[in-house]
């Protein structure tokens, strides 16, 4: 009987990982993920743009949201504001400094569940060579089977950073100090 009890215990331990978070790869291949930014133009309007090249993974389980994790690596050279001359300026030492800091990364450190489907993703954002903690207000959009035999889960998120926090001198006027970030993240389960 002791042997059986031990076996049951082991079995229970083996079964328990069923509630472990599933691992996803962000679907950049099919471009079902977007990293966008928005910054004031003169205080009268906005300039929006995005990073075209990035990669990442996340793990997520509805039953244990607090255990979720996400990692993102952004190729800052891929900045695209739909204006080549402006993008050239954005890549320069005035802004993204891509020759020195071609990669920006976000690594989550803590997930704080809020109301259903809403949670804060706290993590370290490394941008222009400076690492600082930021919080992304995230929202689950949905998950389920896709029509091609895979399983997908998708989220949106918003955050904001101050240029001066990341050693970028704001030369665009006081209203442009804060840059809003928005994320659409769709993952395909591994």
């Amino acid at each position, binding site marked *: 009987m002791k042997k059986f009890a031990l076996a049951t215990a082991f079995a229970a331990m083996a079964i328990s990982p069923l509630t472990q978070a599933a691992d996803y790869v962000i679907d950049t291949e099919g471009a079902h993920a977007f990293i966008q930014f928005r910054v004031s133009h003169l205080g009268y309007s906005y300039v929006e743009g995005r990073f075209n090249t990035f990669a990442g993974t996340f793990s997520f389980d509805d039953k244990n949201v607090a255990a979720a994790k996400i990692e993102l690596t952004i190729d800052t050279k891929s900045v695209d504001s*739909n204006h080549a001359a402006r993008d*050239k300026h954005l890549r320069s030492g005035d802004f993204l400094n891509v020759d020195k800091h071609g990669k920006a990364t976000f690594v989550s450190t803590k997930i704080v569940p809020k109301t259903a489907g809403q949670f804060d993703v706290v993590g370290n954002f490394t941008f222009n060579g400076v690492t600082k903690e930021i919080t992304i207000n995230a929202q689950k959009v949905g998950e389920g089977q896709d029509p091609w035999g895979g399983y997908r889960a998708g989220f949106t998120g918003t955050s904001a950073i101050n240029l001066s926090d990341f050693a970028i001198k704001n*030369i665009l*006027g006081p209203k442009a100090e804060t840059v809003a970030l928005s994320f659409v993240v769709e993952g395909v389960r591994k």
Partner: protein
Amino acid sequence: MTQTKSYAKSQILLHWLMAVVVFGLFGVGFWMVDLTYYSEWYRIAPHWHQSVGFMLALAWVARIVLLRIHGKPSPLESHKPAEIRAAHFTHALLYLLMLCLFISGYLISTADGRAIAIFNWFELPGLGELFAEQADIAGTVHQYAAYGLIALVVIHAAGALKHHLIDKDDTLNRILGRTKPQPSNYDQEQ
């Protein structure tokens, strides 16, 4: 024996006009890249730089055409073979660097297919991105070609002054339209 054959009046005029424009464009280019976003020149200076640059390209074509029509004076008898070779090489490189500046300048602003407005007179159509990182690569080429051109112009001018002041020959007089210079004319140099 004095070589009296000079350049055609049109060649002389265009030569000095281009000399002035080359220095003007270099000065404006050097200055405008550091303008702040809120400078009143931020938009107009590049517009003029591009417009005048286009006119210089037209003048460049005209110079080549005039060279085909009128030819150029044969070297003075006092010119040493090495001097002749150096002068021809410098002339060819001046033309080549200018061509390089026209092309690279065009490629910076048209990497996204945008046209370049020439003096609000007409729009020079853009060809879009012809190669990866076009705006950045073209920008770097444009910058160094401009430094190279100015360095070469200084060498070119130093050569002309050497012939004028030290060798006291007619090299510079030919491009000043003084077909039959007298030694006394040297003092009236402008």
